């Protein structure tokens, strides 16, 4: 369909217009770490995200207490550090699965049997309570999407005031992975009578553990 391409571009070239200036991007508001964390927490809790602040090494202990209590029997982790740590510290009553083979080999099991997925993240955005995820070989895309509960470990030092700041300081324009995500709360819909309902297709619950 190269012909279509040429026709369309030719039609578009029949006019030349002034390209207006778009102005400078708004500067990020300076705020210290604790203010950013407070903002992040408030924004995410407003859309039913669950946020906990823990000391660095305490997250395994938190999971060991909480997962059995929440009825999580099958936990899925990636092949990175988080998975290794969990493997080294088994949680009684919780079976750890590793996302270590192509999804085609176990799609049905992934969709039907996993209760929770745990991932890290590249940081978060305080203004909107959004997590930045760059799925990849160690933490594939569906790990944060298919299980009904998604647990995210967030380093307290990785908070950005807003999306523009995050894009700038993480250098997104220099190269994005095949898939990048902003996640702000559990999956939701208001398609029936504009009534907000949680967990339509993605996770029903989103838990963020802020470390440090």
């Amino acid at each position, binding site marked *: *369909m*190269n012909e*279509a*391409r040429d*026709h*369309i*571009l030719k*039609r*578009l070239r*029949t*006019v030349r*217009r002034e390209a*207006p*200036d*778009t102005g400078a991007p708004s500067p990020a508001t300076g705020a210290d770490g604790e203010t950013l964390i407070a903002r992040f927490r408030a*924004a995410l809790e407003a859309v039913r995200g669950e946020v906990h602040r823990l000391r660095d090494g305490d997250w395994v202990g938190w999971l060991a207490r909480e997962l059995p209590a929440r009825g999580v029997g099958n936990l899925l982790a990636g092949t990175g550090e988080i998975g290794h740590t969990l493997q080294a510290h088994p949680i009684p009553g919780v079976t750890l699965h590793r996302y*270590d*083979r*192509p*999804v085609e080999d176990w*799609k049905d099991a992934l*969709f039907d049997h996993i209760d929770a997925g745990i991932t890290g993240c590249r940081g978060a955005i305080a*203004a*909107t309570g*959004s997590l930045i995820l760059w*799925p*990849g*070989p160690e933490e*594939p*895309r*569906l790990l944060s*999407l298919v299980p009904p509960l998604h647990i995210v470990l967030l380093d307290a030092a990785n908070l950005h005031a807003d*999306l*523009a700041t995050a*894009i700038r300081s993480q250098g*997104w*324009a220099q*190269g994005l*992975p*095949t*898939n*990048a*995500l*902003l996640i*702000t*709360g*559990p*999956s939701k*819909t*208001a*398609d*029936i*009578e*504009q009534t907000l*309902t949680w*967990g*339509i*297709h*993605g*996770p029903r619950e989103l838990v963020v553990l802020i470390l440090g």
Partner: protein
Amino acid sequence: MNVPGSMTTLRARVREALGKAPVRRNFRAAMDGIRAKRAAALPDATDFAQRRARAAAIRARALARLPELLERLEQRLEANGIQVHWAEDATQANAIVLDLLHRAGARSVIKGKSMVSEETGLNDALGEAGVAVVESDLGEYIVQLAGEPPSHIVAPAIHKNRHEVAALFQAHHPQREATEDIEGLTAEARQVLRRRFAQADAGISGVNFLVAETGTLVLVENEGNGRLSTSAPPLHIAITGIEKVIERLDELPPLLDLLTRSATGQPITTYVNFISGPRRADELDGPREVHLVLLDNGRARIHADPLFADTLRCIRCGSCINHCPVYVQVGGHAYGSVYPGPIGALLEPQRLGLEAGGSLTSACTLCGACGDVCPVAIPLPGLINQLRAEGVEPRPDSPLPDAGRLRHRGEALLWRLWATIYAHPHRYRWLARLLTALRRLAPRRLGAWTRWREAPRPAARDLHRPGARSGVLR
């Protein structure tokens, strides 16, 4: 395909819509709610004015350099491994999609929301070719089950209440326990559609923004169905209009922010999905192939029209629709077009031609509400009014299809007569005297005008005489 058609067919649809009290209640309630949410999300008028000036400039700048940006986008996408296809019209777009599905041997498709695919009638085309398509956005799924087109570009099933949805679900999922509870219905859709995501051979989605700089498709959604459709099946085909491109990634945040606040009053949606390539060799999931179909379908023609090119700034937030006093009364289906409301009244006549779409411009009171809320400052009321003019008295070189075709000879003659008389003082005075003398003959009924109003009657004395006597008029 959805075409608004003549005034007569539009009127008939409007009459039918006005007769459905429950549907009108559904619309009223939904629109009141959504307007309140938007107002709360954009509380400061000065701040909104500044933000939308910037958003409008970003879109205008992208459109001014559209061919260049599209080429850069194509180059970046292909470098990232995303294959780009160009379609001049709906038929070509559907043929491209079908061909891709055939080559992959795909028989079942799970679909994320895409208004452009509504524009091309993609589901019908796939159905005819024997491909099973399931819409996965909850609203789209509901209207698909009902065999109806979406009645709103953001909230497709806004015209249905829970009881109607419950009846549909019961008819289509008889094996499941009946419920009328919204949470129960949502859970039911989750269960039914989950299997479809796991089994689909291909996912088809729309796109909200294309970023030329990085070669990225940006998708905005709350449900996660968009993410699932684009990452669970082995093949992902995205389809969108050529106008969706922006130049740089740092231009995205201001647009994204206004899009979600304007659409649903949210500071951000649950998911913003940046797709910049298919699965790499070392990755364990994601589609092995990603394709983008870029659709023209009249957009390049609109782009070339200096009067109406601003139409293409639209980011499809639906805010103009939500604030339209006509839409809220008649609902989306009355328009008979793919895009309803003010953006429909502006876009469809240009896309389809004035003969097939021009009647929509009459479904506007020119109240200005749409222009006030549009996050990219499209002067909707003014442009809709100009479109009306193009129907009857077009510019000499108007590129609009069927320009001037709505001209009515009797009406034109009457206006000419009026202009002749009003342009000359003595002719005007003569007419005024004549009308005053014959005032008793003035008709009491003037068609639709006098349904709710009284017919105007000339006064016993025209204003000229007292005016002349007091020296105000000569």
